[in-house]
């Protein structure tokens, strides 16, 4: 579907709303069929998707598989497996106050949902919504591939792809949605939420942050270095919301850590990293220039201790490590979103807590240590969307854990059942019968009635029986 302006978008949304109102997306069979379609698409179009990702980002095939294809597949499978369970109304206990009665909570689809730049749209479908997907325009080959493929595998009357840039996104945001799901940065996140406010639309915002990695000296150094490197440079070359952003370690341990990182990087990407096919490039020249500026800052450029090579023509920057850049430099104030890794040193490892807490809450906080006390203190003392000890990034794949930010890193959570919840309305249903009529509830009021109500609300069985038997009589 080609990018269109305001009127086209309005008509699209109206059409989706009509389909939803007609009940098309609600049945389990429809939802399962769409999920199976997405699974087939991920399997059949794997090579094409990887090619598009390579065109957009020079992403290595394996990375694309792991981070995009496999995740979509496992999300779809997880949703399919759990669909019936998630859709089933949950019975809850009804209190004695409303005796006799039954109560339950049912999951209802919200309606028509807008998903901007997120790959976990399978769950919005599993929850029975009609969906408009707006893929990121920053990765144009992937975006147009999705627009071309999706209608071939799913019900395109209820699931649409709208491509485009700022103009199209603005047009989409002017429509009324039942929920908006946005992945991206805080600046646009604010615009999305302000637009949503006009229609009182709830939002889920998955934003960024500076994900810190605290490295203690009590670690297996080689494994630590590998896991940090894999999380930093093995994920779109640092261009991921949960990439490790910077390291904090002790002054005494820093040289050892740096050496280990250097060794690992050479093993991963060889001694000419700009020529390695395993390294993604920077997504576009805007971001390349932004990163170049961070690197070339006069207070920062002399702190490079590893790497620093770049090729403007290919839009590639090699893994680059800095030692002790000033805390007020650009590279320490904004989310890096690239292959630059500052190492900040402290005297004692606990000083890292104050530094992290002086920044806005990140999407993920990482810690490498074997010391269980330090682990406990980290968990209790640092707030982040999620925390991972002794590894980076992989918590993304756990379908049982909520994934989302807090504070500046976002609102709401998703993955697995949390996604299903994010895209559903929990409707309470209370069913009473006509028995159990309590005159004490109604006027004319009296002290006797007040006494009974006191007992009922306290859970006092005697009062409750009185209430059910209709005391006080005759009123």
């Amino acid at each position, binding site marked *: 579907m080609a990018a269109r302006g305001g009127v086209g978008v309005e008509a699209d949304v109206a059409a989706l709303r009509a389909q939803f109102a007609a009940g098309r997306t609600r049945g389990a069979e429809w939802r399962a069929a769409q999920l199976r379609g997405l699974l087939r698409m991920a399997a059949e179009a794997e090579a094409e998707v990887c090619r598009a990702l390579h065109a957009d980002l020079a992403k290595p*095939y*394996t990375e694309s*598989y*792991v981070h995009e294809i*496999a995740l979509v*597949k*496992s999300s779809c499978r997880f949703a399919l497996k759990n669909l019936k369970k998630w859709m089933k109304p949950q019975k*809850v*206990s*009804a209190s004695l*106050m409303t005796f006799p009665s039954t*109560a339950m909570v049912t999951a209802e689809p919200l*309606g028509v949902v807008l998903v901007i730049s997120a790959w976990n749209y399978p769950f919005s479908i599993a929850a029975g919504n009609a969906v408009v997907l707006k893929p990121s325009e920053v990765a144009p080959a992937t975006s147009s591939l999705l627009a071309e493929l999706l209608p071939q595998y799913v019900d395109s009357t209820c699931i649409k792809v709208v491509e485009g840039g700022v103009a199209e996104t603005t047009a989409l945001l002017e429509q009324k949605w*039942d929920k908006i799901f946005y992945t991206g940065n805080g600046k646009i*996140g604010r615009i999305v*939420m302000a637009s949503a*406010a006009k229609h*009182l639309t*709830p939002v889920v*915002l998955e934003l960024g942050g500076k994900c810190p990695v605290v490295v203690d000296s009590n*670690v297996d150094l080689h494994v630590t270095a590998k896991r940090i490197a*894999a999380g930093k440079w093995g994920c779109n070359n640092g261009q991921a919301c949960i990439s490790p952003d910077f390291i904090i370690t002790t002054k005494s341990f820093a040289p050892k850590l740096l050496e280990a990182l250097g060794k690992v990087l050479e*093993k991963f*990407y060889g001694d000419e990293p700009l020529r*390695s096919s*395993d390294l993604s490039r920077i997504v576009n020249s805007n971001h390349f220039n932004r990163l170049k500026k961070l690197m070339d800052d006069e207070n920062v450029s002399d702190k490079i201790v590893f790497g620093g090579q770049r090729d403007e023509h290919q839009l590639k920057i090699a893994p680059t490590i800095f030692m002790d850049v000033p805390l007020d430099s650009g590279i320490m104030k904004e989310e890096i979103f690239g292959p630059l890794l500052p190492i900040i040193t402290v005297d004692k490892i606990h000083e890292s807590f104050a530094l992290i*807490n002086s920044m806005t809450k990140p999407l993920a906080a990482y810690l490498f240590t074997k010391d269980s006390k330090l682990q406990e203190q980290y*968990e209790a003392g640092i*707030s982040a*969307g*999620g*925390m991972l*000890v*002794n*590894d980076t990034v992989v*918590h993304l794949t*756990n379908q049982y*854990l*909520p*994934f989302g930010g807090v504070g500046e890193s976002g609102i*709401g959570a998703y993955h697995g059942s949390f996604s299903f919840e994010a895209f559903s*309305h929990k*409707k*309470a*249903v*209370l*069913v009473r019968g*006509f028995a159990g*009529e309590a005159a004490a*509830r*109604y*006027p*004319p*009021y*009296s002290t006797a009635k*007040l006494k009974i*109500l*006191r007992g009922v*609300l306290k*859970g006092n069985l005697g009062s409750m029986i009185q209430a059910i038997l209709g005391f006080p009589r005759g009123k």
Partner: protein
Amino acid sequence: MEEKPQNGGSFCLGGLVAGVREVHESGRTKEMEWRQAQIRGLIRMLTEEEDAVFDALHEDLGKHRVESFRDEVGNLVKSFRNTLQNLKKWADTPLISFPCNAMVVPEPIGVVLIFSCWNLPLGLALEPLSGALAAGNAVVLKPSELAPSTAAFLAANLPKYLDAKAVKIVQGGPEVGEGLMEHRWDKVLFTGNARVGRIIMTKAAKHLTPVALELGSKCPCIVDRINSKWECQVAVNRIVGAKWSTCAGQACIAIDYILVEEQFAPILIELLVSTLERFFTKPEYMARILNEKHFDRLANLLADHRVASSIVHGGGANRKTLTIEPTILLDPPLDSDIMTEEIFGPLLPIITVKKTEDCLAFLKPKPKPLAIYAFTKDEKLKQRIIAETSSGCVTFNDAIVQYGLDTVPFGGIGASGFGQYHGKYTFELFSHRKAVIKRSLWVEFMFRYPPWDEYRMRMLRRAFRFDYVSLVLGLLGLRQHDFKF
């Protein structure tokens, strides 16, 4: 140390907000003992100061003490006890997967701002406050200035019974509310109308402050033909209670209007009138209208001559005493204000349909309400209502009581808002669910890392398929080929 209640002034607000944030960051509000102490403090306050509460609610709204107990004080104490009983369980961290050691740790979200509304001025302030405290947060409460006696009560007493440094009350009008929203909060809960809800959310967007909005709506009540005389009476008791005995209809979950088969309407009206006469033997049994502005608003709804001519009972109004008689209307025009705006008062339109099932088509295009009520014994109809309508909740054969049930979520959808609370849902609303995974450093899979090759690709495919057998065989060098999935 006695804390003076804070009023307006942007400078004061900045200091207040910073102070509360500092308390939260000190970690004090996270302690389980602290949280339990706050909840116990709330219970003690409502028990010891019960008479003062009844007086305040009577001054603000003319509520009879029995109504105040039933809807606010009693309900709150019950809810606080439920919170106290379950707090440890809610705060516990469930282990998700072993041996990877993955958990979800509920964390206090931080510093919370609660705006409450004037019609349940105690309940709508203290219910969310208790949950926010149970979740370990510091809280600023802005009670509605339109219920000034209750606001004053809260300002005077909350500091005595709770940790006055961590719980602050800010009094004032809309400018104070706007001033508060200039600051960043970790969560804001707003109960009120959609117009102000939009303003709150727009201001919140500047700081990426998450919000929950409990807004208004027209809650419809479907009344099916009921054959048993006694059951019919029970239904009417409950309808009368839900409309006129709850703040004279000034409640977001009050029955706004009725939908009934045209043949059954006369019987229903007769029963409503006789029940009203039996219940409201004295005028003090019904709350009064909040103020002249709302009185005029309601009087205007009846001013439309097409609406006035549809009145079948009541219609009397006294501006001096701010009272309006329980009023029933039969089929006012659907495009009149009384049928397009939320009534929030003691006027009850009855809209007739040919058959009860027609109600479903009637409701479909309407904005989603906070609650849909239906009095019926028809199981099929019940299923259709659940499946074919959308609302915050559905209650069959009663009304309003869902508000007091701690096990179900309370909140709206669409135009009636988003975000839910009550019971453990309040705890969750004001918590951040932090995912924590602990991995060991000694279990290591080489195929995770570049340089990439076919072998690593194969191993990764197996890992993602959870094909552990092939994975292990592959690692041991024993299985070379795969069927590609």
